[in-house]
């Protein structure tokens, strides 16, 4: 794809000249590692996206299809409870359900560890970053019971395999996923004229729920400034009726919940009779809309480059998306090829999870660093510190995901929590800690300055010195 002749005016050639291995690791990966060599050129970075997924097999995370078995088991216990209310059988079922909930919670912490190890050991760090980017774009979390712990399995199944394909496939995969349907209230939504609603009668009205339709337009595709109206939201919500899932089989389309008749979204009429293929068709059309191209281009530029990216970068990303019909690889190619991607000054502030991930990578924690850590330990040294830094693991506040704006994260409380973690936790993950002066060089590369070198040598203890390196601006920004 990239083996073309270099022409001086071609921005790609400018990039070949400006590509910087250390910046590539810091801005497009999880920072420098003493174990892994940075990519040598942009082609290396791109090739890493489609290379065999070594990290997935080295540090496995349960896929959603397997995770659903946990939901099935919990539902069975709940059913026993309902049938035997007030009896010992119900009490035993309640206890068993709580055990299942606890096991899922423990598994969630295991997957947190696996995610951190992938980021520590990957040689294709851009892949992990781009997965995290799309997982945030399609933020979803389960609402009640076992499914609350299903985020990592959702990312594994619905996001990870799709990040190098076309956006419309990724969009369908995420929007129609059980976790998204649960999160944005699609499962109970019923067309007002659906056979089911008519059977229930006017005394027991069931309704449309616009939550998913609105977020698909506002967050996933066109963007909040996109050319849609309330009518489009309502029509898309009607088109979405029928989409639900069951724990045993996953996605399901319920004809009896679906609103009959054609629905018109952005001027296009979809299907007389309710069919899931019309939902897919509408999503494909939304993915192809120019506003979607613009929205995604802006979001990617902000995420990877700066809160205030070069408008030319956004234009270039948008054009790549449109020219290649929503194929994502050419968009990444333009991102990595644009001169503003290689600005030598770091602008974006790392989000807490990025900060923690890159600290573990810089420390080169051992592969067994999380082995045998119980829930209490994971809470104390990872989950709670992340809460204090402002980014609760897999619990973003809303469907719009985590804020990109740096001031959201550079708060007294959040920074205070970073300092506490940076000075306290590394020593628990890497024993012995590296020599702080050497650590300043491996963690920061050529971005280590005199102040951090001095501090690394002047601190009273090794954990403090390592913490100071991790708190330096060259490590906090990307």
């Amino acid at each position, binding site marked *: 794809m990239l083996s073309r002749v270099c022409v001086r005016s071609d921005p790609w050639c400018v990039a070949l000249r400006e590509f910087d291995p250390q910046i590539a690791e810091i801005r497009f990966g999880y920072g420098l590692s003493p174990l892994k060599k940075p990519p040598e050129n942009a082609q290396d970075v791109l090739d890493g996206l489609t290379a065999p997924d070594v990290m997935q097999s080295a540090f496995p995370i349960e896929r959603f299809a397997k995770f659903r078995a946990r939901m099935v088991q919990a539902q069975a216990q709940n059913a026993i409870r309902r049938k035997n209310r007030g009896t010992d059988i119900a009490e035993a079922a309640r206890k068993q359900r709580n055990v299942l909930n606890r096991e899922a919670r423990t598994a969630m912490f295991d997957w947190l560890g696996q995610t951190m190890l992938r980021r520590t050991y990957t040689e294709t760090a851009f892949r992990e970053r781009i997965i995290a980017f799309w997982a945030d774009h399609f933020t979803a979390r389960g609402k009640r019971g076992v499914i609350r712990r299903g985020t990592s399995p959702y990312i594994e199944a619905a996001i990870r395999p799709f990040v190098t394909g076309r956006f419309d496939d990724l969009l369908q995969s995420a929007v129609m996923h059980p976790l998204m349907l649960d999160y944005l209230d699609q499962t109970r939504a019923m067309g007002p004229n659906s056979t089911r609603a008519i059977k229930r009668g006017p005394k027991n009205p069931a309704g449309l*729920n616009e939550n998913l339709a609105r977020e698909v337009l506002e967050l996933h595709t066109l963007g909040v400034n996109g050319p849609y109206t309330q009518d489009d939201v309502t029509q898309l919500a009607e088109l979405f009726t029928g989409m639900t899932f069951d724990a045993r089989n996953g996605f399901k389309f319920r004809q009896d919940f679906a609103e009959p008749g054609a629905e018109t979204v952005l001027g296009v009429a979809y299907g007389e009779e309710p069919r899931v293929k019309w939902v897919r068709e509408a999503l494909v059309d939304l993915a192809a809309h120019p506003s979607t191209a613009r929205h995604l281009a802006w979001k990617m530029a902000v995420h990877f480059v700066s809160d205030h990216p070069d408008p030319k970068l956004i234009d270039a990303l948008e054009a790549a998306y449109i020219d290649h019909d929503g194929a994502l690889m050419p968009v990444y190619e333009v991102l990595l090829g644009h001169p503003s991607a290689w600005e030598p000054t770091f602008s974006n502030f790392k989000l807490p999870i990025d900060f923690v991930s890159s600290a573990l990578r810089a420390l080169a924690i051992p592969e067994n660093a999380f082995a045998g850590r119980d829930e209490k330990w994971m809470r104390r040294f990872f989950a709670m510190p992340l809460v204090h830094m402002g980014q609760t693991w897999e619990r973003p506040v809303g469907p719009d995901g985590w804020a990109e704006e740096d001031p959201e994260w550079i708060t007294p409380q959040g920074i205070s929590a970073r300092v506490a973690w940076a000075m306290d936790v590394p020593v628990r993950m890497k024993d012995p800690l590296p020599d702080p002066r050497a650590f300043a060089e491996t963690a920061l590369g050529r971005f280590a300055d005199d102040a951090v070198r001095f501090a690394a040598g002047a601190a009273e203890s090794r954990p403090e010195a390592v913490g100071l390196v991790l708190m330096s601006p060259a490590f906090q920004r990307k």
Partner: protein
Amino acid sequence: MSSPLSRRAFLARSGLVGCSLAASPLLTPVSLAAAPWDTRLVVIILRGGMDGLDVVQPYGDPAFSKLRGSLAVGAEGGAHDLDGYFAMHPSLGPLVPMWDAGQLSFVHAVSTPYRDKRSHFDGQDLLEAGTTSMAGVRDGWLNRMLQAVPGVTPQTAYAVGRSDMRLLQGAAEVANWAPDADLRLSPQAARLLELVTESDPALHAALAEAQVLSSVGEGIDKKGKSGHVQIAEFAAARLSEEARIAAFSLNGWDTHGGQARFMDTALTRLSETLLTLRGKMRGDTWRKTAVVAMTEFGRTARQNGTAGTDHGTGGLMIVAGGAIKGGRVYGQWPGIGDGDLFQDRDLMPTGDVRAQAAWVMRGLTGLDRSVLESSIFPGLDMGGDPGLVL
């Protein structure tokens, strides 16, 4: 040490010996005249669904003991009679003097517009969004209030503690701080940290503020003090200065079983919180303060099979402070007899908790009713003034 510079020389050269905190906006003197208004508002979110019928018990209605069985207490059981019909839960005993002083009131049978599904997750989201549905809502009502008044600074409103305070999220900048977030660094580490971050003004300023905020609690002995008391002390300290709004959470209201014990714990925390706010505010701050405590929903009118109650609808709001008209149980009481209950299970909601909050904000800041009903609580009808604020 391999460094070519001695520590002293380096610190002196970078101007970092001593305190560079003067750069902190927190240390910039703020005159009271510059503050947008002088009253104080504290919003406490009671997470888990507080059982209003247990907190303020309609013991004057014979139906109450029938619904409640072992949970019914009433005046004979040690609850504090308020007006011959309602009694305050025994665990709120420490607040009796506040009630007598006219600084504590309740609003009964209020709720958000949330109905039917009775989920904590959805209920709290809606309570903090202040809207009728979550679709497309990104910010909270208290943040929209800040957007509607002039002269707000980043230190006007504080979200205190560890929990996500959605009601303060939004376009208006607010301060977040948890008393246990205090920076605990050796003087040496603190200086080196200042040095290392000096080249990054935003990071440097945030650290400097963290040091100032950590020192707000200095002199307060935190040892052995529960989180809620630390939070209340911090809020009282900030509100005694330039802060005008503080919001935080109290958890532990989801009393499905063994309610008597859990309620005692939760109400003791609540009364300690209110007493700490009153006791630690300086000068006449408490006199200018209204505290509003609200929950996502009430609980079932009937006691369940495990000496607790399940998720319900109509709930209770608690109002306290020197700026409120205390000593009353407000609200339109729906009764708890046959046919009075919502879906034959919950206290019937007769008032919107948002309208009560709106009237408190109007009383404190003079905000226009039209602003309250359109941008802060979109689509709300505030109804008549209940007269909660003096």
